[in-house]
């Protein structure tokens, strides 16, 4: 198969649009050939995940592009950075590490991007619309854009998203194309009580199961008794994109490309059908906890970044209460969401409760936790999935209410009622 480039693509490749566009287009063309694309297509938005500071190679890549005068050609949001720009000194972030992370932030900002510093760009005003062709990095953002909004992006890695943003082009492959968006695997929820489906902790658990069941094929979930909200779908997608490579799921009667089962499969038969039972979900929930120790050092919420609606939900849960002095309670979010929450008056009760707020970054990408913090609790399956490998910490998964109650008690307490029946 031969890749056919437009005149403008050829110009960029030849350097007529500057050396940065040349470098970006050369990587883009090489990857388009590898992935068997017949052509490139126009995108009208991008989200750059490469902002996360990992080490010198990622920084050198960013600074190479920046020094070549790179400018994005479509509206482009930025993912979390390596540090909370204005508050990192309150944590255990080494200053030389912070300097490097700051350089990486500067490099990406110099390209004319929008410094959103969030892993949840769908919570910003740059949220894409149904059918929009975009190039997004960050696995939870990708699965949300495709599944919940119906925008179209492939599962793009770091370093590639910025090449798309600079050139305004992406390979015409995968989930950009209608025919590749059909469901393949039908999963029927079997006798899952409505009371559990209403509960927030159902979604990360379902997502964790989904990622393992689907790997990289497109799953279709049928049998929902209620209509989940966006934050529940966010938690589901983030979990499925962690335990598996899910970049698009359909939920019959709920997500935009799945008004019916037939629509979800684009009229084709499922390649495979199976049930999701309570036993499977209980097992998935157990896998998200890595200790049977009741010790608790810190509660972490906001992976992906806490939304305004989540602040609204948390505020009354903590109002008039105080967390135990031996437990830290951290919420991670974006500047925009934190500001909205502040304006709406949701942050006061959090502060009185003893909660801390961090913006711009993610606890998984910044060395902010001191060593003595070992036992963490979270309501995020994504965080529970990655924290043992990335942070070498012991994790307990629980609902938002479990997290609050545990912080007050000073030890891990979980309400098992919904999971027992």
């Amino acid at each position, binding site marked *: 198969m031969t890749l056919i480039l437009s005149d403008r693509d050829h110009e960029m490749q030849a350097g007529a649009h500057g050396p940065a566009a040349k470098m970006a287009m050369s*990587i883009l063309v090489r990857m388009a050939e590898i*992935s068997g694309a017949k052509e490139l297509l126009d995108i009208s938005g991008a989200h750059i995940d*490469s902002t996360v500071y990992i080490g010198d*190679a990622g920084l*050198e890549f960013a600074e*190479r592009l920046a020094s070549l005068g790179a400018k994005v050609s479509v509206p482009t949001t930025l993912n979390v950075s390596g540090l909370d720009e204005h508050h990192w000194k309150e944590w255990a972030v080494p200053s030389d590490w912070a300097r490097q992370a700051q350089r990486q932030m500067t490099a990406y900002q110099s390209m004319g991007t929008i410094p959103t510093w969030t892993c949840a760009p769908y919570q910003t005003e740059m949220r894409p619309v149904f059918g929009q062709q975009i190039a997004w990095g960050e696995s939870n953002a990708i699965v949300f854009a495709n599944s919940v909004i119906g925008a179209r992006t*492939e599962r793009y890695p770091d370093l590639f998203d910025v090449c798309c943003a600079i050139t305004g082009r992406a390979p015409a492959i995968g989930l950009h194309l209608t025919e590749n968006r059909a469901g393949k695997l039908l999963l029927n929820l079997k006798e899952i009580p409505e009371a559990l489906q209403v509960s927030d902790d159902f979604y990360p658990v379902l997502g964790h199961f989904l990622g393992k069941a689907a790997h990289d094929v497109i799953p279709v979930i049928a049998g929902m008794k209620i209509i989940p909200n966006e934050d529940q779908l966010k938690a589901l997608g983030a979990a499925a994109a962690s335990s*598996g490579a899910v970049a698009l799921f359909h939920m019959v009667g709920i997500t935009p490309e799945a008004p019916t089962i037939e629509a979800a499969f684009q009229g084709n038969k499922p390649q495979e059908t199976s049930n999701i039972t309570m036993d499977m979900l209980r097992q998935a929930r157990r896998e998200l906890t890595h200790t049977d120790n009741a010790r608790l050092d810190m509660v972490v919420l906001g992976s992906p970044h806490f939304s305004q609606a989540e602040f609204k939900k948390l505020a009354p849960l903590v109002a008039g209460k105080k967390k135990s002095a031996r437990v830290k309670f951290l919420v991670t979010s974006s500047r925009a969401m934190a500001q909205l929450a502040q304006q709406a008056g949701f942050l006061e009760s959090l502060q009185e409760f003893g909660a801390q707020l961090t913006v711009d970054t993610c606890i998984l990408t910044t060395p902010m936790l001191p060593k003595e913090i070992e036992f963490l609790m979270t309501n995020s399956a994504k965080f529970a999935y990655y924290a043992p490998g990335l942070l070498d910490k012991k994790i307990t998964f629980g609902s938002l209410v479990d997290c609050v109650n545990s912080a007050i008690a000073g030890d891990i307490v979980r309400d098992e009622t919904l999971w027992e029946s």
Partner: protein
Amino acid sequence: MGILVLTGRPVIAGRASGIALVSDQPLSFWGGYDWKSGEITDRRHPLSGMNAKGKILVVPFTRGSSTTTAVLLEAIRAGTAPVAIITTAADFFFALASVVAGELYEKSFPLIALSDLDFGLLRTGDQIEIMEDGNLTSIRKEVT
């Protein structure tokens, strides 16, 4: 001794030889690979605790995080990366790391895609040699 000769597709062509580290489970490098040492750190992965530096990593595809490419690029720069990777399909994340490493450091690595059937024949400990055309030989010392 057993010798296998397999026909692979060179997603990124090149020559490499090394000891195979094989799993049929996909791997995320973010939270799964310590680029400072080359150790596989995903505690749920069958290869957890093994070191892939200088080895030929054989996994079907990448899982999860879009940061896998960036972590692999760090490993290439630090000299802790596998010398080649074998997958079941042209894995975009691995391929990009090789392409960018070529662009930045002139250090691309071979990436070979095998059929599911051929992939299933490889075992950890096999001595693998990858040719420019994507074909490879795998030598196994019989367990006595």
